[in-house]
């Protein structure tokens, strides 16, 4: 079966410095991702690891430096016409991190939803658009929908605004929603509500999600599959529970040990780790985690470990590969 969305050796480099600078920032390097229909895939990693760049590549905000993105088996590069790219944007919308700046403050929230509908579903007339707007707003758990639609963003709380963000994406009848840190700006007490919205949308509307987060506990809460990113590489991926039960990559292990869990006693580990980001500007060959890695061996300094594309659970680590 063709996966819904697939990337092959997806790479994005940015030039930094002046016009004559030879420095390039390797934001994303050789990333292979597969997202199936009706699946929630979580992408976790620290800030600066390239998570958002992947989301923007998939949303066609950036053009890849190399590699390709296949949507329903078709390469995005082959979608040249305006209609094709508009269809793709309706199928794969994005929900942004900051609900305070992603809605237009000058219009009621209905405005954004209705405009999107007019653009992506031109078959609907005005009355149908309004009914569809009411339906999506109800689906994301906002009631009474008709009144909420006529409110301005400043009249809504952060959690309600972010639900509107999801409603907007949902209005286009998407197959995959790219959710870039959708809950990290919200209070802890209302995050769960939005994660439940994602789980329900998958259940009821059959939408897939790429859930980008730095919070591994919330990733576990909603996702089927987990991908861990470090310095532009996917270092580990697999079914969420399998990865969390037996993390193979030392970075995943570090990440897991750092999650505060009030129900458990203070776990050992991470005590002296400085959490400093790796160098991704003109990176040297070799594993990018090796300077922080407790298991680093000689080969790590010269050969970049590649993700063993096993059937399910894989990790890009020489030591882990040797242990198999």
């Amino acid at each position, binding site marked *: 079966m063709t996966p819904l969305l697939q990337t092959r050796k997806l790479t994005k480099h940015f030039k930094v410095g002046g016009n004559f600078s030879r420095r390039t920032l390797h934001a994303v390097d050789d990333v292979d991702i597969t997202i199936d229909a009706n699946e929630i895939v979580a992408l976790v990693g*620290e*800030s600066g690891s390239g998570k958002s760049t992947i989301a923007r590549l998939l949303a066609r905000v950036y053009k890849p430096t190399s590699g390709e993105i296949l949507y329903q088996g078709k390469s995005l590069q082959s979608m040249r016409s305006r209609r094709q790219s508009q269809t793709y944007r309706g199928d794969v919308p994005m929900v942004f991190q900051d609900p305070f700046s992603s809605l237009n403050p000058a219009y009621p929230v209905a405005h954004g939803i209705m405009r999107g509908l007019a653009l992506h579903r031109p078959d609907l007339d005005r009355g149908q658009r309004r009914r569809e707007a009411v339906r999506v707003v109800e689906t994301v758990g906002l009631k009474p929908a008709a009144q909420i639609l006529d409110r301005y963003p400043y009249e809504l*709380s952060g*959690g309600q605004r972010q639900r509107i963000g999801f409603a907007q994406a949902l209005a286009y009848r998407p197959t995959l929603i790219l959710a870039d840190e959708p809950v990290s700006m919200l*209070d*802890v*007490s*209302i*995050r*769960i*509500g939005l*994660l*439940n919205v994602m789980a329900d949308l998958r259940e009821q509307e059959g939408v897939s999600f790429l859930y980008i987060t*730095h*919070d*591994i*506990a*919330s990733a*576990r*809460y909603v996702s089927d599959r987990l991908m861990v990113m470090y310095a532009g590489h996917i270092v580990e991926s697999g079914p969420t*529970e399998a990865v*969390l039960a037996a993390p193979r990559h*030392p970075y995943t*292990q*570090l*990440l*897991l*040990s*750092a*999650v*505060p*869990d*009030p*129900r*458990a*006693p*203070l776990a*050992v*580990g*991470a*005590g*002296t*780790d*400085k*959490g*400093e*980001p790796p160098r991704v500007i003109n990176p040297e060959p070799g594993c990018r985690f090796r300077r*922080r890695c*407790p298991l680093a061996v000689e080969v790590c300094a010269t050969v970049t470990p590649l993700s063993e594309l096993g059937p399910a659970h894989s990790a890009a680590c020489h030591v882990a590969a040797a242990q198999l």
Partner: protein
Amino acid sequence: MANAPVPEILFPQRPAPGIPVLDVRDLTVEYAADGPGVRAVDGVNLSVHKGEFVGVVGESGCGKSTMLFAIAQLLSPPASITGGSVLFNGRNLVTMTARQLNVLRWRDYSVVMQSAMNALNPVTSIAAQFRDALQAHGNFSRSQIAQRSAEVLTLVGIDPVHLASYPHQLSGGMRQRAMIAMALLFTPELVIMDEPTSALDVVAQRSLMIQIRELQQQLGFAVVFVTHDMSLVSHFSDQLLVMYAGQVVEIGPTRTVFDSPAHPYSRGLLDAFPSIRGKRVRLTGIPGSPPDLGRPPQGCRFHARCPVAMDECASQEPALYPVGAVGSRCLLHRPAQVKA
């Protein structure tokens, strides 16, 4: 590295008895507004002993930051302290003049601001900012300033060469550490921290928390630490204060509050976290949002969102009742009911 055991000293210890460093009594803060003022902090009592770590948790808009600003005497209009006192080593900060406060500020107590990442001046070097603070609050020679700046930076685990760096040359975690170093320039008795780690990812966040705890053991200062992420302070604070709608709804030893939260709000906050261990269960969080403090609801302020609310909760306002080692502002813990 990843598997090194965490030193014993990190675990919360019983605070030394004696006169508290900080004693907040019936502190009330109001924001002036048309009509009745907005009471953002309502009768808060809190004592912090030498070397103690006090965590303050609650949702946004519950008055946590306002309370910190009131303690540090940093409120600016329209906010003002309308009642209560803040005793710092027995002296009331509220009635002090600016000149009297200047003697204490930064020397005896210091503040690490929210989003410390952006609180550093982007156009001057770290050394210049440290020098500024040292010169504003004391008399030092150039070499003394250089020496002390290097000392505190080393203390937080940053190489002193970074004194010459500008904030943008440091990573987020390092900037946060530099802010903490700055707060320690005079080795104060109390450091007030307002969500200092909220912009960091979990790995950096955790190592910073461990470091704060280590420095505290080493230098003996007390910490008041505000956060909306309750799980963050679970392993680090001695005393936990849960705030809701400007009031303290639960206060007590951190471990007790986490193990058996007395107030339904504390329980709700705790249950809002998905865990990375154990069974995957569907959580609900706390429905609704905190009330408008301009028009606080009748009775218990939490009753509209409370899963165990009774009829009388809508009319009768609970006081802070003792429940074992903790205090809880919930009618369920009314002494009469406990006896009956």
